[in-house]
């Protein structure tokens, strides 16, 4: 009997040599006459431990990491295949403190299964949601999603059920499901981990959405810097179609749903839903004015559900276990769990799925283990490049859409980027403007002109401390115009990081007392 060994195929693991480790394992095991069956799983999300090798011993998965190819021979010699001790040994990975207290609903399978194995997927409750959905009327599926309280994970937190209901109610010969997998936010990688680690979950979520709203075609718009995710998704769609989970009659139900995988155009703003639709249609990725809502006139002018990967990935669980099982997690109007992503200057970066309500401090200290540099945390940017910078004093806020909004912050896609006390917040603010200037689609006046000029104003402020109060006033007025006037959240939210830096860290802007006049 061969021994099952896991080496992740997630690109975070590949980037640090997982393929080489896998090759070394094959070679060294063969040399030793040991029979191993190597499975390339997704990543568990303990990124500082990648490449993490797991071996199944007595039904337990014992992990070693981070493993370099040159460690392999020694590990085998030390008895890796029997789960023996080694300096890199991590023990039963399920009991690892990083994982043990997570509430993995969406990431339940990621890192555990072979991503492309339909058997594995079904052995772990896969397609239970789809089978349940096929027994329901479309409106009942939508109702379940509504009852679960699931909100969009792409940034805006819009209730998914309401969006679906609008599309269900729209009359059209063709409707679409579009998955926003452009994942452009800094410090985020959960979408990618789902696609690379558990693609059938996304496919299942899409198919359920299609059945619910009457859409027969779905597109996955995947960030162009994610070649592995594109490959895995394409292979998964092919296999799922061949096995009858997709196609003209899903599992013989007579309901059709097909999926097309598309590589994105490589622009941050193409993650904005209307620019994404333009891009999918083959045009320049420029934001559309709303109305019409994409739900009524989206892709090719037809009613369209656009959801983030994580939004749709949460759906199979809701259908399989019922909306209440999901809604039991979370707080206030933020129900369920969110896969948080810890990045930046942090010791234990990775994926932590927790119910809403966990604090940033808990995530950063308990899970993240503080900064990588060992210096004190000065600021955390939550929610991507358009998210506010929080000072240490606000890190005890619960991660909840409304609680953060009350402090001028956003949760976004759940990414946290940590900075220690060496950070120059004026430089961060300038960078926010510059990012916007580079990524702006250029359609609307406030963002197109404000971002370029905003970066210049901050630069002048940095260079001439004497002018700081005047320039700061100008900067606030400029942010006001961007905030109030921009067509989409790119220009409309770029002021968040800028103003939060200015408000919370005035000393970095050559300004004296903190002014609390956030817009």
């Amino acid at each position, binding site marked *: 009997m061969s021994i099952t060994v896991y080496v992740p195929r997630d690109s975070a693991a590949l980037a640090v040599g997982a393929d080489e480790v896998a090759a070394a394992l094959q070679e060294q095991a063969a040399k030793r006459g040991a029979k191993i069956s190597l499975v390339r799983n997704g990543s568990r999300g303990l990124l500082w431990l990648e490449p993490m090798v797991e071996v199944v011993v007595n039904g337990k998965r014992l992990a070693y990491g981070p493993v370099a190819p040159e460690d392999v021979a020694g590990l085998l010699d030390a008895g890796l295949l029997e789960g023996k001790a080694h300096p890199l040994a991590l023990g039963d990975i399920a009991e690892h403190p990083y994982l043990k207290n997570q509430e993995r609903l969406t990431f339940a399978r990621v890192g555990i299964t072979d991503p492309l194995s339909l058997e594995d997927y079904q052995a772990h409750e896969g397609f239970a949601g789809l089978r349940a959905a096929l027994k329901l009327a479309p409106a009942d599926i939508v109702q379940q999603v509504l009852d679960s309280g699931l909100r969009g994970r792409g940034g805006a937190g819009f209730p998914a059920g309401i969006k679906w209901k609008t599309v269900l109610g729209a009359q059209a010969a063709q409707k679409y499901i579009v998955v926003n997998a452009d994942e452009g936010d800094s410090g985020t990688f959960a979408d990618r981990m789902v696609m690379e680690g558990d693609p059938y979950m996304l496919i299942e979520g899409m198919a359920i959405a299609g059945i619910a709203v009457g859409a027969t075609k779905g597109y996955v718009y995947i960030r162009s810097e994610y070649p592995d995710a594109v490959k895995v998704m394409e292979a998964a769609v092919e296999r799922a179609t061949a096995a009858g989970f997709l196609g003209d009659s899903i599992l013989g139900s007579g309901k059709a749903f097909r999926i097309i995988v598309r590589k994105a155009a490589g622009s941050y703003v193409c993650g904005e839903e209307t620019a994404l639709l333009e891009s999918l249609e083959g045009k320049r990725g420029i934001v559309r004015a709303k*109305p019409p809502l994409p739900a009524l006139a989206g892709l090719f002018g037809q009613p369209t559900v656009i959801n983030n990967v994580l939004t749709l990935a949460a759906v199979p669980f809701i259908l399989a276990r019922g909306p209440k099982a999901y809604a039991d997690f979370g707080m206030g109007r933020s129900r369920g769990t969110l896969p948080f992503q810890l990045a930046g200057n942090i010791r234990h970066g990775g994926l932590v799925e927790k119910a809403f309500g966990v604090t940033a401090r808990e995530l950063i200290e308990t899970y993240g283990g503080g900064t990588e540099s060992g210096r004190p945390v000065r600021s955390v940017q939550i929610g991507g490049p358009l998210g506010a910078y929080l000072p240490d004093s606000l890190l005890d806020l619960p991660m909840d859409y409304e609680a953060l909004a009350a402090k001028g912050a956003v949760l976004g896609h759940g990414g946290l980027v940590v900075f220690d006390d060496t950070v120059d917040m004026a430089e961060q603010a300038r960078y926010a403007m510059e990012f916007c200037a580079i*990524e702006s689609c*250029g*359609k609307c*006046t406030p963002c197109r002109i*404000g971002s370029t*000029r905003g970066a210049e104003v901050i630069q002048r402020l940095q260079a001439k401390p004497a002018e700081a109060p005047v320039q700061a006033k100008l900067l606030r007025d400029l942010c006001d115009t961007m905030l*109030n006037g921009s067509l989409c959240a790119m220009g409309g939210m770029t002021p968040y990081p800028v103003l939060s830096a200015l408000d919370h860290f005035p000393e970095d802007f050559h300004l004296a007392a903190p002014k609390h006049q956030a817009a």
Partner: protein
Amino acid sequence: MALLNIEIDGQSTQVESGRTVMDAARKLGIKIPHFCYHRKLSIAANCRMCLVQVEKAPKPLPACATPVVEGMKVQTHSDYAVKAQKGVMEFLLINHPLDCPICDQGGECKLQDLSVGYGGGASRYQERKRVVSNKDLGSLISTDMTRCILCTRCVRYGQEIAGIMELGVGGRGEHSEILAFMDLTVDSEVSGNAIDLCPVGALTSKPFRFKARSWELADHPGVSPHDGLGTNLEVQVKLNREVVRVLPRNNDAVNECWLSDRDRFSYQALHSEDRLTRPMVKRNGQWVEVQWAEALQAAVDGLDAVRKTHGPEALGALLSPHQTLEELFLAQKLMRELGVHNIDHRLRQTDFSLDPLQHGAPWLGMPVADWSALKSCLIVGSALRQEQPLLSVRLRRSAGQGARVHLVNPFADDLAMPLGAQLIGKPSELPGLLAQVVQAVAQRKGMPMPAALQPLSSGQPSAQADAIAESLLRESGSAVMLGHLAQHHAQFGTLYALAQALAQLLDCPMGVLGEAANSVGAYLAGAVPHRGPLGTHAATGLDAQAMLRTPRKAYLVMGLEPQLDSADPAATLAALQSAECVVALTAFKGQAPEWATVLLPVAPFTETAGTYVSMEGRVQSFNGVLAPQGDARPAWKVLRVLGNLFDLSGFDFESIADVRTEITPDLSVVVPQTLGNGLSGLPPLKVRASLGTIERIGDVPVYHADPLVRRSPALQATRLAQTVQVTVHPQLGQRLGLAAGVTVRVRQGDGTAELPLAFDAGIPEGCARIPAGHPLTAGLGDALGMVALEALA
């Protein structure tokens, strides 16, 4: 449609659901500053100038893109709203040069107007302004791209109205800029409207550039002298001396806010070197300038001598349908009083078999505005975009909203709009193709083909014909239209009878597209051989073709360049040159000295009062905007004096109003009663077999259709005007052993022309499309006759 209540700046109103705050404000007459919004274009909501305060909204909202909801309360000029608007304005001014005094848009710039109200004087931003390189867009539009505020009106115009995306946005963020598609020139037949749409001085009129500041201009209403649409113009005159610009005058029932490029730029001809400004007579083979009295006497003597020696039937009048109603009326009156009945304005027409059968003036058969509501439309024999640029714009919008447009045409035309089924065939095949559609409609209605038309049917209609029939029958809102090419066709009578039968089966309007500004007016004026004014009975004279095929001894020619404005230039020139006396009333000298004996300089449309009757029967009178140039005189005055000199009674008009009153005291009441496309019988029906191997498709290109457009340097420099070629199906080229791009010789009768050859698979194989109305083809014969093509030795 549900009505919603909204309150704006304290005023209440009701608007239909689906309308925006901007719509509601406009209804109340409340002005909200805006740049990208335009009522004829889709909503882009990109300039963000129209931000207003909406009760309960967390942010200011763009009025142009915010739908009204019940009970909405809006403040457009509250401190909150103005602060938001000022913020956007300040941004726009950061990048915009503040040199209005040297900008061509100065004085009529929306940014300037608004910034005077909002701007804070010196900019708070110190960095350099953004600089954008200018683009060469061709002869019509000049650019100052640094001024562009990227409102994308020009881009949306091309996509949505003109049907060709000549301009687009390239680059991203601050590097976004307006670019011409593939660096091509921007000169479709309706490109100039982008100039009016551009709210700043980024796109301006190239011919107008630096000619004048807007406040030096006097505006006069005018009516387009080109196609029969009746486009309303604003003619701008500088210092009472020169027409320096023509702009659209909004009329939603006619041209909306658009102009075709020829409406806009043809004014350049008014001040061309070629204007005839002195009367001239030909004495002993020499042309001499003379006083008016002498020239008029020479005209009278010349015409009278022929009349006395050969009788009045030896005289003929060839009149341009671009002349005014009053001029045409007086010309035919003069002729008829002299006993001459050979009067015609239809020089491009070749089949006059309808004349005895048609009692009304042929017209569009429906209001122009109703083209916006067409559901399905069959156009027979037309190069529609070139013939009717603005009617095409209307049809394009209908097509965009789902209307089905079908062609029975001698070539597959790119109408820059979605097209339904088409029947393309050689000119000689058009009657047969149209008959198939009639037959298919009859079959679908379970009716026999009208008995009289039976001889035209040949077996079963094709699938295409049936598809057209299905589309025309599907719902009400169809129309059948005969284009200029159909009107020039040798079997126009047959095509007309078929179109009529089709429209009767469909119970829908049938009409003819008005080729000239006054095509309908010319009928009403009596400028036809078989009818007097307003369709009254008259002794029948010779039609234009007959007058030229059996040449007269004397001609009165008004407003025409016969070699360019007739169906058969060679025959026309021969006829005129053989005459003893040819009196030409013309604004331009052109080639007239080659065929006339007396040249009388008359005023073009801007230098005289007059009336045009459009193809929908709209009567539009206008006044001159300038004194006639040199010794030129309004033609109606010249004709009046000729009447006096002939000692005719009834030529004592004091004013143009007197002439109008003589036609009828109430034109707008009488005209609609005088229009009519009905026939009192069928003309002889012909399905002509092709006469030879290569049939000529001689359509008249848009910039060669009349004497004015031919003299506009800006129009002549466009790609449309520059492209003069013989176009054939590639297989014909192959068969003749001719390659694309080579110069070929076209032979027609005794005439030849040498033109480059081009291939287009949309042309039937046995045809060559060779433009008419062009100096390079003026030596050729019948525009729809047979030609031979050969390689140059």
